[in-house]
């Protein structure tokens, strides 16, 4: 496959997410975007296709949500009510909250290619006969906000956004909304409450959002990257999209690698690229002096993958074979000099802090688990603690909690207990952490890591 995206000799057309990006790192302008084939998908849709035909293309492409859960994008759209009797206005909401630790692709995409998001949301709006779009941005994404604001201005001026788009009779506009900041606002139904200025606890389902979502109107919520996949599917067709991937899931995806590798960053590669290739070829492999011990494959709520499992192809189906999920597809590498117990503690403290407090297992349980992990890390662990932790993961399964935050929180813990039982046991037996780099948030005065010399490769 010499034309595989990401390899020498592949054509720009085979990189639909990054094709229009500028080499200087600034946001692609409307002219940059159009020169790279931008807005051709929208032109095709309004000129040649009926709304349900756009949804059919997206369904047939096999596109699955890229915010973590992997639900079929086209199938979601197909549940929106159409026709003159449908409730109005209908909404297209873009989930650009990206607050899950270890997720770093949407910022890259929005800062560099804002028009692609606008075109994707426009196509979603056309396909579902929606009226209005909102991009829900996390509080710290000022650069993404600025890039999108610039793009919206350009698009309105040139007739791609607003009334009677490209003279087609289709009207749609997009507003930006900045979050007041909290991880739970990324959960789709909590996001709708946040957009309405309600307290952002998740909502009960049913009703489904496509029936009664934002302001009780039919609403589609998708991730940034999910919308961004659509323009090329509409422009080049389903067969082309399917031909891009190594596995049969179709398309390319933005993958990322962070940690002690030579070349950390985001990479557009075919769906199904082996995790090993992503790390060793595209991210340049581990820095000298460090070995890979495990990988968090797609955000803190995905199970860790052990070093012996990294030949797995990165895809929705294949990641199940290593007891994990694709999640957001941005890898964070645990190296051999970083404590797996300390890292798990850091993640659990995050989830405990970000619990919205609505239901008991999550509100109370995560605090307990974090406290137990802290005891183990700081030498107060007792025999039996590991059994209590394992039991705790059972208490937070999805049938016992109101949303997916708590079940997600248990995944790194469950996998760390499975992959590193001897590390946990050693912390308990030896009365604390044997690593220098271990204290996630001890006060500075007490933090031994603060005095430790900076390890090779930190600068």
């Amino acid at each position, binding site marked *: 496959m010499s034309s595989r995206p990401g390899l020498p000799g592949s054509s720009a057309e085979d990189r639909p997410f990054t094709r229009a990006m500028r080499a200087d790192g600034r946001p692609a302008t409307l002219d940059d975007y159009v020169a790279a084939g931008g807005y051709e998908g929208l032109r095709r849709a309004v000129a040649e296709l009926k709304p349900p035909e756009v949804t059919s293309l997206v369904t047939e492409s096999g596109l699955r949500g890229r915010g973590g859960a992997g639900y079929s994008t086209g199938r979601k759209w197909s549940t929106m009510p159409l026709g003159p009797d449908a409730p109005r206005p209908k909404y297209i909401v873009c989930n650009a909250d990206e607050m899950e630790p270890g997720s*770093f692709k949407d910022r890259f995409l929005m800062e560099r290619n804002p028009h692609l998001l606008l075109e994707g949301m426009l196509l979603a709006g056309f396909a579902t006969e929606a009226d209005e779009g909102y991009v829900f941005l996390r509080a710290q994404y000022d650069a993404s906000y600025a890039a999108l604001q610039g793009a919206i201005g350009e698009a309105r001026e040139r007739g791609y956004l607003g009334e009677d788009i490209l003279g087609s009779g289709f009207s749609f506009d997009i507003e930006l909304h900045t979050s*007041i900041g909290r991880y739970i606002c990324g959960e789709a139904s909590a996001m709708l409450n946040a957009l309405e*200025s309600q307290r952002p606890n998740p909502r009960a389902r049913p009703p489904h959002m496509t029936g009664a979502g934002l302001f009780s109107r039919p609403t589609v919520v998708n991730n940034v990257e999910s919308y961004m996949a659509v323009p090329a599917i509409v422009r080049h067709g389903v067969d082309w999209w399917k031909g891009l991937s190594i596995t049969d899931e179709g398309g390319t995806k933005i993958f990322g690698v*962070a940690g002690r590798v030579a070349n950390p960053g985001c990479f557009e590669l075919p769906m199904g690229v082996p995790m090993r290739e992503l790390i060793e070829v595209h991210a340049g492999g581990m820095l000298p002096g460090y070995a890979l011990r495990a990988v968090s494959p797609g955000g803190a709520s995905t199970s860790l993958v052990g070093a012996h499992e990294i030949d797995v192809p990165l895809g929705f189906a294949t990641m199940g074979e290593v007891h994990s999920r694709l999640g957001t597809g*941005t890898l964070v590498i645990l190296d051999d000099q970083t404590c797996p117990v300390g890292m798990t503690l850091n993640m659990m403290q995050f989830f405990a802090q970000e619990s919205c407090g609505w239901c008991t297992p999550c509100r109370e349980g995560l605090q307990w688990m974090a406290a137990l992990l802290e005891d183990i890390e700081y030498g107060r662990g007792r025999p039996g603690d590991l059994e209590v932790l394992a039991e705790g993961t059972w208490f937070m399964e999805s049938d016992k909690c109101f949303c997916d935050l708590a079940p997600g929180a248990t995944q790194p813990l469950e996998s760390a207990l499975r992959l590193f039982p001897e590390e946990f046991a050693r912390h308990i037996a030896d009365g604390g952490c044997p690593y220098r780099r271990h204290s996630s948030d*001890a006060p*500075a005065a007490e933090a031994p890591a*603060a005095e430790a010399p900076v390890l090779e490769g930190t600068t």
Partner: protein
Amino acid sequence: MSFSDEEIRQLDAIIGHYPDRRAAAATAMRVVQARRRWLSDDALADLGEYLGVTVAELDGIATFGNMVFRKPVGRHIVLVCDSFACWSLGYAELRAAVEAELGVGMGQTTEDGRFTLLPIVCLGACDRGPAMMVDDHLHGPVAPDQVAEILGGYS
């Protein structure tokens, strides 16, 4: 009501982006905070009156979000990312350097009112960790010995 003409103009502009005044509350808080840096009880009461929302409802949102400030903060907000990615790349050293440079701990404001230091969950910059933000500028990766120079750029 204590809003200036400019604040009223900005509030009216954002209210137009939502179907009703109530739904604009979260953004309205951000607009007022952007000008005053934090939301006093009086500011919240005025906002409630202007939007037709109770103060309790506004505070329900304000206290939920970690970027709405109900106490005075410094001229610049410093956020140090504490995600597991930055943690494994040197968060402890970076945090210690920032605290030493500012002479305050997490959640505190420098005596001269220049900086407030806050923890922040993952900044979405894992490939640039350890990362920090000062106001709307992302910095990363930041070595401890670069902290003084970065903070020196904010008066």
